[in-house]
């Protein structure tokens, strides 16, 4: 069965996207790519540190990997567009994860500025993946702007709390046409399975992998969880019931024994 994800003019086999922040060393990336089927990663843009020798993350990313440029650090649509243009001037990628935050306690995205930035970036020919607070109305507006997907947060960035916004994300998945990629807060493989069982098109994991004691094995664990959840979703999740239902039918023969 071909269950490839068609997104932004690409056909992907892997529904596990990974972020590269907080990794102890970028040299883990080639090991992850050699052992797990990863096709999409995210990177961010920062001022170059002129005073110390820094590793160039691009040296560790093979050309077959799609690089999604994250605009984190942008505080409004204008800054976001600048960062998108900066990133795509360095590498030949038009995939932009629009991330606009003004709240530093919860790192909540500004949905309003995100819509503005998405509209502009789509006009400029980018494939736009907006990171949003899970809100169906915002997701619909982004779909109308031409976003390639929406990326609602499961819970706050880096908290590992899983999908606390389950009902809200389900309302998005069930009511828009473009893919929904659950991003942020997914802390365990079981959370990733749940995301896929809910019908998410993919998940983006960063903290849970990058801060693990063994990021390669943790990526493997997430990959299996994503596959399991996806297969269960395609097969059909059984309905929940309030009362017991015996797995083997009771037969009236006990009194004859």
């Amino acid at each position, binding site marked *: 069965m071909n269950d490839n994800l068609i997104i932004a003019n690409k056909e992907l086999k892997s529904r596990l996207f990974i*972020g*590269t*922040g*907080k*990794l102890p060393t*970028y040299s883990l990336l080639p090991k992850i790519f050699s052992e797990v089927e990863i096709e999409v990663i*995210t*990177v*961010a*843009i*920062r*001022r*170059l540190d*002129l005073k110390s020798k*820094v590793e*160039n*993350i*691009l040296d560790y990313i093979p050309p077959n990997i799609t690089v999604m440029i*994250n605009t*984190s650090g942008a505080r409004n649509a204008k800054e976001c567009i*600048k960062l998108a*243009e*900066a*990133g795509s*001037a*360095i*590498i030949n990628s038009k995939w932009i994860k629009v991330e606009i935050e003004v709240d530093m306690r919860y790192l909540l995205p500004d949905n309003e500025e995100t819509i503005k930035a998405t509209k502009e970036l789509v006009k400029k020919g980018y494939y736009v993946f907006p990171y949003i607070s899970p809100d169906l109305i915002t997701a619909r507006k982004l779909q109308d702007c031409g976003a390639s997907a929406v990326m609602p947060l499961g819970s706050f*960035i880096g908290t590992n709390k899983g999908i606390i916004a389950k009902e809200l994300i389900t309302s998005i998945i069930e009511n828009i046409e473009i893919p929904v990629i659950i*991003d*942020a807060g997914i802390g365990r493989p079981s959370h990733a399975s749940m995301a896929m069982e809910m019908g998410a098109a993919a998940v*983006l994991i*960063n*903290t849970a992998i*990058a801060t693990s004691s063994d990021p390669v094995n943790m990526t493997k664990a997430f990959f299996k969880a994503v596959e399991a959840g996806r297969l269960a979703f395609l097969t059909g999740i059984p309905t929940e019931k309030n009362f017991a239902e015996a797995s083997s039918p009771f037969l009236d023969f006990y009194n004859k024994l």
Partner: protein
Amino acid sequence: MVVINGEKYENPKNIENLCKQFNLNVQAIVIYINGKLITKNKWNKIKIKDNDIIEILTFVGGG
């Protein structure tokens, strides 16, 4: 003098000198001068003037 990534330096006059001065990996960076993105095909045409504000950005790990 010019300002490069927030600090004052002698004016390197052009981008080639700037790259030599900081031993920059040209594949990994993007340069803004006074808020304007300077695409690589224009690097050799640009003259850096005194008091210019230069920003050099690069990719880092991110989510």
